[in-house]
């Protein structure tokens, strides 16, 4: 079982307490009606589908909070987790190892 670090509980807990919630850092457009159909489609449906490190959102049942995680989709390793609203964590060599 995966062990995931929750940045709000500051504890490393089993995967079963967490839910995956899609790709992270996708900001809703400020004025949706100004967007073309293609731009709106991209916002709604088009995702990175990364092979390797992937920024994604997770929710912890314990504290009820969404947070961001950087997970390698090949090895399923969590490289880092950080609170929602924080800037995207850079993909450093240490994190990628």
């Amino acid at each position: 079982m995966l062990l995931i670090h929750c940045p709000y509980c500051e504890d490393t807990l089993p995967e079963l307490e967490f839910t995956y919630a899609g790709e992270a850092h996708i900001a809703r457009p400020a004025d949706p009606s100004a967007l073309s159909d293609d731009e709106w489609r991209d916002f709604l449906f088009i995702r990175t589908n990364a092979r390797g490190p992937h920024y994604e959102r997770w929710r912890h049942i314990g504290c009820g909070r969404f947070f961001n995680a950087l997970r390698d989709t090949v090895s399923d390793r969590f490289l880092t987790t950080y609170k929602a609203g924080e800037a995207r964590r850079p993909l450093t060599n240490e994190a990628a190892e």
Partner: protein
Amino acid sequence: MTNQKHQFDASPVVVEDLAPALRLSLRVKPAHRETLGRALGLDLPTRVGSRAAANGAEALCLGPDEWLIVAPEGTDLASPARAAYADAPHSLVDISDREITLRLSGPAVLDLLAACCPRNIAAMPVGAAARTVFDSATVILWRDGPTDFRMDVWRSFAPHVRSLLTQVRTEIAAGL
């Protein structure tokens, strides 16, 4: 209601129902936590999983802006909260009937919980509490002593949780 406890043999785990209590779900921004805590007479803890007790009421920090307050039935916490609303906007919801509380105790209680909780319950400090999952049901586990727990279960999940508890207790009693 008469609560009668039948105990025919020295069971490694005792599961019993606790009397109904007042349960309140409190959401308040961290900036207003202290003001509201003073109004309620509770020092609302800030670390997720930690508890504070005063005047028979207990507050458990469930999340950065979420608390669960448990008090004896009939306690009036709504009035002081309403009075403090202008200074500390918040949401206080009565969820007393949403859950039932089971007391789990006995020397094998950690084995019982380990059968269905993915979290390392043995590592949980005495006096702490956590919202976690029991099989697939969300429960709140309170650790009151080394082998003494309370578990708040949503009513609709209770039959499932009870059947699992009975099954695991039978297995433990049989030495499996």
